[in-house]
């Protein structure tokens, strides 16, 4: 029988499983038995309960300021069943129903543009590039709902450092997969494909900007942007590109998918801002899914989604009404 490279489990995942086994035998096993003092010897492990659906992706709890939201994490069922991923359909339930066709192995990410070290990165190398951290972030969708998700990954800055951007690189563009064979709605007129997103360089290297490979202690479900995606917690959700295949460094601000589709509604920055309404609805409040209850009042949306202390200085002096 011929073994295809795609049949082989990526090494980082195998090692991850071994790590998890080791941990079951030592650290968290002790936790289960109630001998808490033992934990003092180990680093703080990610505490999120695994749903047991996909391969585990072990991580350590991030110590980065802002990376451990105190909010109650959204149920895995909701986070993996209510998605905007238009390549698989525009209904919130479409991606979970259709994304099983997405093939995430083998996967490579191409680094190009204004960097000293362009090239193709196999997913396995990206998984092993930096230690995995668990970060619990609020996710605010531009549509007015929000979730709280324990992501697994590391700062995008780690990758950016490795590829050594040139001084002329001012922006980072993210190009996502557009495969009509596995993505049934690529070709629909809603957006231009491939879906692209972009960040200013200082936003891209901000430590809170996460390159995520997993959530809830496991690898990402396809409908959430497997095998790797961006998570920019202070911006509306659509800025966090899913299933990334190319990262391009450029001098000029890249075009972004929603901005091209409706420039007056979706700006390049798209920072969460309760004071700047979407032209068609208010952004002052949001419904926290699974928590605010069907008959409950919506909660107030926070400036920069509550990450103002960490990212506010990036926008000092910028007119946020004009640069929405």
């Amino acid at each position: 029988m011929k073994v295809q490279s795609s049949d082989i489990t990526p090494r980082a995942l195998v090692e991850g499983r071994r790590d998890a086994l080791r941990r079951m035998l030592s650290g968290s096993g002790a936790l289960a038995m109630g001998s808490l003092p033992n934990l003092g010897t180990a680093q703080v492990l990610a505490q999120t309960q695994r749903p047991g659906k996909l391969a585990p992706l072990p991580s350590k709890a991030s110590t980065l300021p802002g990376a451990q939201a105190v909010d109650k994490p959204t149920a895995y069922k909701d986070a993996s069943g209510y998605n905007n991923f238009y390549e698989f359909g525009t209904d919130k339930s479409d991606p979970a129903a259709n994304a099983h066709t997405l093939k995430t192995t083998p996967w490579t990410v191409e680094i190009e543009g204004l960097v000293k070290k362009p090239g193709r990165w196999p997913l396995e190398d990206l998984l092993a590039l930096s230690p995995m951290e668990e970060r619990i972030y609020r996710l605010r969708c531009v549509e007015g709902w929000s979730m709280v998700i324990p992501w697994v990954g590391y700062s995008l800055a780690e990758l950016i450092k490795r590829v050594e951007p040139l001084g002329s690189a001012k922006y980072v563009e993210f190009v996502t997969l557009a495969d009509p064979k596995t993505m049934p709605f690529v070709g629909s007129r809603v957006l231009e494909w491939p879906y692209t997103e972009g960040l200013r360089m200082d936003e891209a290297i901000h430590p809170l900007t996460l390159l995520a490979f997993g959530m809830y202690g496991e690898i990402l479900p396809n409908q959430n942007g497997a095998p790797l995606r961006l998570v920019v917690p202070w911006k509306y959700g659509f800025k966090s590109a899913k299933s990334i295949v190319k990262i391009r460094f450029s001098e000029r601000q890249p075009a972004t998918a929603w901005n091209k589709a409706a420039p007056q509604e979706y700006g390049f920055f798209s920072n969460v801002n309760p004071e700047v309404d979407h032209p068609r609805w208010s952004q002052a409040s949001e419904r926290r899914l699974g928590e605010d209850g069907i008959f409950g009042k919506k909660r107030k949306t926070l400036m920069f989604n509550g990450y103002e202390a960490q990212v506010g200085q990036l926008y000092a002096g910028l007119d946020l009404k004009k640069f929405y």
Partner: protein
Amino acid sequence: MYFASIHRAIGAPLAKPFVFVLALLPLAYWLSALWNDALGANPAEALLRGTGLWTLRMLCVLLLVSPLREAMGWTALARLRRMLGLFVFFYALVHFVAYVWLDQSGQWEDILGDVPKRPFILVGLLAFILLIPLALTSFNAAMRLMGAARWRHLHRAVYVIALLAILHFFWMRAGKRNFDQVALYAAIIGALLAWRVGRRFIRRGARPGTSR
């Protein structure tokens, strides 16, 4: 004949309670799904969209009554029309309550801010307001009081309501340029209204002395 037996069934005494129960099924589904937490991650949105869609579907069923009655000769359908009309109003009312209570948390100042921001809400609201006098005059006594001609005239507002409903749906979906379902319902309502225009035209032409 097959069609004749359908007509007999429509005329049967149990037809009306049967259709009544049938028309309540969407409501029964929402209540059970709500109870079993089966409406997905965003139940408020699911109910808001579901009630809107079923209002539109009821409207299609209602507008189908006259064409079916005339084309198939199913005169007994007339007996069901008022009830179906009231179901359109009922689902529109549930949709309205879902918007006020679930989407806007009953905050009137929020609603006043929301309506001018989202013109499709205004259009939906207008359609709902137009439905109210039709529902209020659905009783025999109201028809007697108004006189048949004026009553019929008033109830032609349902055609305006149907057009507003389609515009409301189209505008709501325009944000994501997701028009597949809109096109389907627009085609159905368009065909049902076109049939009425065509019939009027033919009748006018057929009546001696009124040809122009």
